[in-house]
């Protein structure tokens, strides 16, 4: 076991030395560092303009985390997507395969190296993250959950890239495929969710019982209601509603939503989420709300009880969160299974002596 880890470590160090072209890499990480700094400063300034409290640094923090996820998922495929087939083209894979390093050590070593490189982007944005932490308002559990999921998601992209580079023989093609996988998860799920929800529509009938403002005497200046409340005849109308509640599960596979949903949401006094995690999570939670085929808005009865607005059955985001289910762990498990399958496939394909070869490729 110790020997296994030893060789694995050698492969990781070799990969890091070989792939991180020092100058290019320093430039790229510096660019990310500056970009995150600029984004943080702008966000901070815009929040100050709204006169919000320092605890809104939670909003800045969550935005930076999403930004790092965006940058990480954009760059990691380029790092990892040619790890194995690139070596095969350069003639350096076979010379590693004839050593005592096994296929699993080679593939996992490349994966760990790609993951490490992806995490340097997180390191580059640490100063900005630290700033928001010092400013206060970021809860410990939110910090742990969001960082944990971010680190795992970057690992998933690294694993998919390395895996595909072992399964596909052409480096260019495997890099592009990795980008397509990332795009399918990040954007494709949104498109599928929207189109799916719109495609499955159902008839809903809504009945409204209003208040007859033309009778009932003087209006109460405090409530704006007539002294005597007289109900109108119930009015019904029927329309079709998209059934997002049937397809919301698609969103569970979206890495941004996994991240948002995993971070514990904090609410302000009015029951609204305080950071970007909560706002995005609210989207997927709201989509879960079932569509009722018959609904009644009894404004009149509500008015008699004191407040006509109660008839609309309005819920605050906090209430929506309370009666819906979190889905991030489903999405995370899907991603981890995808990553593990890609790596397992690459290990099987890299194992020597090789039975079949990737078409058109020389083994050496």
């Amino acid at each position, binding site marked *: 076991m110790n020997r296994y880890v030893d060789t694995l470590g*050698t492969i990781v160090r070799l990969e890091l030395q070989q792939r991180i072209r020092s100058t290019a890499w320093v430039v790229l990480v510096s660019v990310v560092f500056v970009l995150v700094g600029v984004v943080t400063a702008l966000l901070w300034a815009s929040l100050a303009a709204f006169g919000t409290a320092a605890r809104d640094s939670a909003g800045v923090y969550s935005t930076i985390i999403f930004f790092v996820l965006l940058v990480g998922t954009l760059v990691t495929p380029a790092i990892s997507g040619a790890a194995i087939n690139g070596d095969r083209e350069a003639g350096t894979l076979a010379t590693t395969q004839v*050593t005592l390093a096994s296929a699993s050590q080679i593939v996992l070593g490349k994966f760990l190296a790609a993951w490490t490189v992806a995490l340097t982007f997180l390191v580059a944005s640490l100063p900005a993250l630290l700033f928001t932490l010092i400013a206060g308002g970021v809860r410990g559990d939110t910090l742990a959950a969001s960082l944990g999921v971010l680190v795992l998601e970057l690992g998933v992209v690294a694993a998919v890239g390395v895996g595909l580079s072992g399964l596909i023989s052409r480096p260019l093609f495997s890099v592009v495929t990795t980008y397509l996988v990332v795009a399918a998860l990040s954007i494709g799920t949104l498109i599928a969710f929207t189109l799916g929800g719109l495609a499955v529509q159902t008839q809903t009938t809504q009945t409204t019982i209003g208040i007859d403002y033309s009778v009932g005497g003087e209006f109460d200046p405090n409530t704006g209601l007539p002294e005597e409340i007289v109900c109108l005849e119930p009015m019904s109308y029927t329309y079709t509603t998209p059934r997002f509640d049937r397809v919301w599960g698609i969103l569970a596979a979206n890495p941004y939503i996994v991240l948002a949903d995993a971070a514990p949401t904090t609410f302000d006094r009015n029951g609204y989420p305080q950071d970007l995690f909560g706002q995005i999570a609210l989207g997927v939670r709201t989509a879960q709300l079932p569509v009722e085929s018959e609904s009644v808005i009894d404004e009149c009865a509500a008015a008699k009880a004191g407040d006509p607005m109660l008839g609309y059955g309005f819920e605050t985001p906090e209430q929506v969160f309370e009666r819906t289910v979190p889905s991030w762990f489903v999405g995370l498990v899907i991603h981890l299974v995808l990553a593990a399958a890609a790596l397992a496939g690459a290990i099987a394909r890299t194992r020597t*002596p*090789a039975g079949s070869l990737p078409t058109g490729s020389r083994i050496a």
Partner: protein
Amino acid sequence: MNSAAALVPAIEVEGVARSFGDVHAVRDASFTVQPGSVTALIGPNGSGKTTLLLMLATLLRPDAGTIRIAGHDPVADPRAVRQAMGWMPDVLGSWGSVSVRRTLEITGRLYELGTEAARSRAQQLIELVGLDALADQPTRVLSRGQKQRLSLARALVHEPRVLLLDEPASGLDPAARVDLRVLVRRLAGEGVAVLVSSHVLAELDEMADAAVYLDRGATASAERVEQSRAQVRDWRVRALDPAALMTALTQLGVTAGATDHLGTLVPVAGEQEAAALLARLVGAGVGIVDFGPAVGDLEHTFLDLARGSDAPAGAADPAPASTEGSER
């Protein structure tokens, strides 16, 4: 080299075949290589030499047949084979941004040497292949010949008992070729079994104890090789006075072939007859200054086998000039 090791062939190949789809790269290869010997693997381009070496190097699974490297089966126990075998590929891949020294250290670590052992082995090998001046340069700055030497050093990191060299001499300058030859002979002297594939047949002539001829995926049988060797072949004769030589040859009833600045080609069947011819020429008073086979043993057999199998491919590959060059 102890006697027990000598009993077990270092490389044993029996009826090995491997195809890629419709292409039968290796159809039927059988041969053995003894410890402490250098065996040349000879064949035209596309005859399956590299595919065969890849199978020996545990990278490719044979479709049929059996292989034993140092007594181990590369398919059943690749790890044991890898511990005993060093492979120098024909493709010169190197980790471009890693230094020569680090490359050898990393390779040593991948062969599970300790950090210290890997470091000192790297230093030994750098001196052995003469890359001292470039030891701390990234490998991307190396020339083809220097990469070739690095590749050889990499194959030797774990002191293998079986060495597979795929075209080791290509890209090497004449001095480096001599170094390679000396090194290979020295390793063989230490008991290492070496299998060398090369197109520079004259080079192999001086290095190899035995030869395996591979043609369109099949090894030539010993009888066919013997037959080719015994065939009438050209010897090159050069005399102080070419005219006197021609006269003497005519008197002896020998039909001389072409004459060039290197001498006259004379067809001779076997070494017995060659010795007799030389004696008679000297007896006739011709001042002979050069008398030898026009082409090396391996090349002659190679060309004859290639001709016999009416395969046009690669028959003219080794330039005759290189034969001359290496004899000096």
